[in-house]
């Protein structure tokens, strides 16, 4: 019917009346405005967050907010160093435990597993991403923490000569449990990105290694891991971003002490957890200090995710035989989509 309206008038065959072009322009500009709105939203977001946290920065000083070890809202002290350290320790722990397991799972499901097990194994690992944060917290505090407590006590006593790790009191909610549960939570995303990157290794590379007499492990070490290094680093960084921003599971598991963390098996706090814990009854400068925690968290995750995306996109264009431009972009997009899907 469209064709009829074109040939019907006394206009030329190819021209369309000015009126008929209106919906086209409207759609085009409407959608452009929508896209621009997202930009405006994030900029507005940042400005407002900064605005609301300014009283705390003015009262405490920006540097001293981040680097002073004294978080005592009732006395008006807002030195967030214990929270920053708690965030960094738990998320580093999550990386140390989670990344090797996630990469191994990705290697197994993409290279070593019998073909018919690959699909189901992948789905099982990704199911970990479907469990909500609060359920991890519930399971962690009522099952994992009590079960691991004797082992933690033994470990802490046996290695009491190592500062920070051993020697302290082992509490039930503690830093280590929070890190361990975070490791489980970042597993699916790190694994999904690693697997996605591993699938971009050209079969020629693998076959060449095998043809030269390499064993399967040597093939993995010589052909796959070097090719995927940048992508795996990117995946790990995305996992780090998740771990830093994770709130509810950490709030339940970390204990909530605002003292500087004394040992690995003691209570601590994190930037996200302190917001969840204290925001409900916070007023005035205290509330503003919690907004400032949110701002630090926002900037920190922004930085980590920026670096991560740089690595993942670079993995999409890593060395290897020349490939078509869209193919490269395809690999990177696939990896990033795996990320959003794993986040679901």
């Amino acid at each position, binding site marked *: 019917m*469209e064709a009829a309206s074109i040939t019907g008038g006394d206009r030329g065959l190819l021209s369309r009346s000015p009126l*008929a072009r209106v919906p*086209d322009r409207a759609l*085009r500009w*409407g*959608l*452009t405005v*929508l*896209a621009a709105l*997202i*930009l405006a939203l994030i900029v507005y977001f940042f400005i*407002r*967050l900064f605005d609301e946290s300014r009283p705390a920065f003015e009262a405490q000083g920006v540097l001293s907010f981040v680097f002073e070890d004294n978080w005592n809202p009732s006395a008006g002290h807002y030195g967030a160093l214990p929270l920053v350290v708690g965030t960094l320790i738990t998320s580093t722990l999550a990386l140390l435990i989670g990344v*090797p*397991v*996630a990469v*191994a*799972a990705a290697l*197994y499901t993409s290279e*070593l*597993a019998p073909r018919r097990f690959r699909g189901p194994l992948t789905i099982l*690992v990704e*199911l*970990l991403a*479907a*469990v*909500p*944060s*609060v*359920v991890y917290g*519930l*399971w962690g505090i*009522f099952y994992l923490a009590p079960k691991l407590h004797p082992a933690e006590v033994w470990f802490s006593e046996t290695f009491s000569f190592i500062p920070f790790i051993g020697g302290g009191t082992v509490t039930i909610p503690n830093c280590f449990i929070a890190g361990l549960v975070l490791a489980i939570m970042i*597993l699916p995303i790190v694994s999904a990105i690693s697997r996605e990157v591993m699938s971009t290794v050209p079969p020629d590379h693998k076959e060449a290694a095998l043809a030269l*007499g390499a*064993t*399967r*492990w*040597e093939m*993995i070490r010589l052909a796959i891991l070097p090719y995927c290094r940048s992508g795996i680093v990117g995946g790990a960084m995305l996992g780090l971003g998740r771990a830093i*921003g994770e*709130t509810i599971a950490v709030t*339940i598991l970390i204990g909530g002490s605002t003292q500087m963390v004394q040992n690995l098996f003691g209570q601590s706090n994190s930037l996200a957890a302190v*917001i*969840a814990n204290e925001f*409900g009854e916070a007023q005035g400068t205290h509330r503003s200090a919690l907004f400032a925690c*949110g701002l630090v*968290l*926002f900037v920190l*995750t*922004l930085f980590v*995710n920026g670096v991560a*995306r740089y690595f993942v996109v670079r993995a999409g264009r890593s060395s290897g035989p020349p490939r078509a431009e869209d193919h490269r972009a395809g690999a990177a997009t696939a990896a*990033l*989509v795996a*990320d*959003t*899907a794993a*986040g*679901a």
Partner: protein
Amino acid sequence: MSAQGTTSPLGRLAVSPGRRRKDRLARGAVLSATLLALVPLVLIVYYLLKKGLGAWSSDFFTTDPTGSTFFKNSDIGGVKSAILGTIEMVALASVIAVPIGIGVAIWLVEYGRSSWFANVVRFFVDVLTGVPSIVFGLFVFIVLIIGTGTTYAGWKGSVALSLLMLPVVVRSAEVILTLVPNGLRESALALGAPRWRVIGRIVLPTALPGMLTGVLLAVARAAGETAPLLFTAAYTKETTTNLSGFMNSLPVQIYNDVTSPTPRVVERAWGAALALVTLILLLNLIARLVSRRSRLA
């Protein structure tokens, strides 16, 4: 074992025992790490079923939580208000996030393509993906609660959830839209159809099942979030359909119950957790089934 003898013509090609041992060790390590990754899943599912099913009863889904936990056998109630609250808030969040998200994705694929502005938008959408969910809660608190001088409300929780869903919807819809063959667009344009018609009649119907998958995954993600709701929709015990009042939700109900010293309330948390995980897995399952029916990829 077969290539043991050096007299065999293939002897030189055989892998030395040391290398073979290393290969076996490494493969064993990779396999055991993979199994290790599945241990938490098994444990979580096992405990959820064991404790959760124990808490489920006929009136678990039909009564509101009562909050009276002082006496040993007082009625603590179920999670009706939490389930309905989650459904209402996530539904409103989808109504906000899905049209905007798909609109932005259409713009990225059909108009923006690889212009610098489109790349900036992509970058910002990725930024949104990385923002911790509690920070969205703070943002909505600043704009809709401090900004308007009012208090918590269900629809404000929905706005926070929609911010969370937006990047997932945009990125997944964008990928599906790029998969629509260019031949389809070109043929429609060659027949004289205007651009908006091509998008509405050709591109969107082709991409629909695939986009639905992304939407369902986003909904599943939003349904499980606690942090953005804590300071936006808050907590209430009563079932309500009024989105401008306080509203309960499953994750917030669980979070509240976890911190309770009463074992029976903790049991209610397990029951609510099982209900929440079942809901999310169901959404994931439907998403997978829908994507299987998609004609693209």
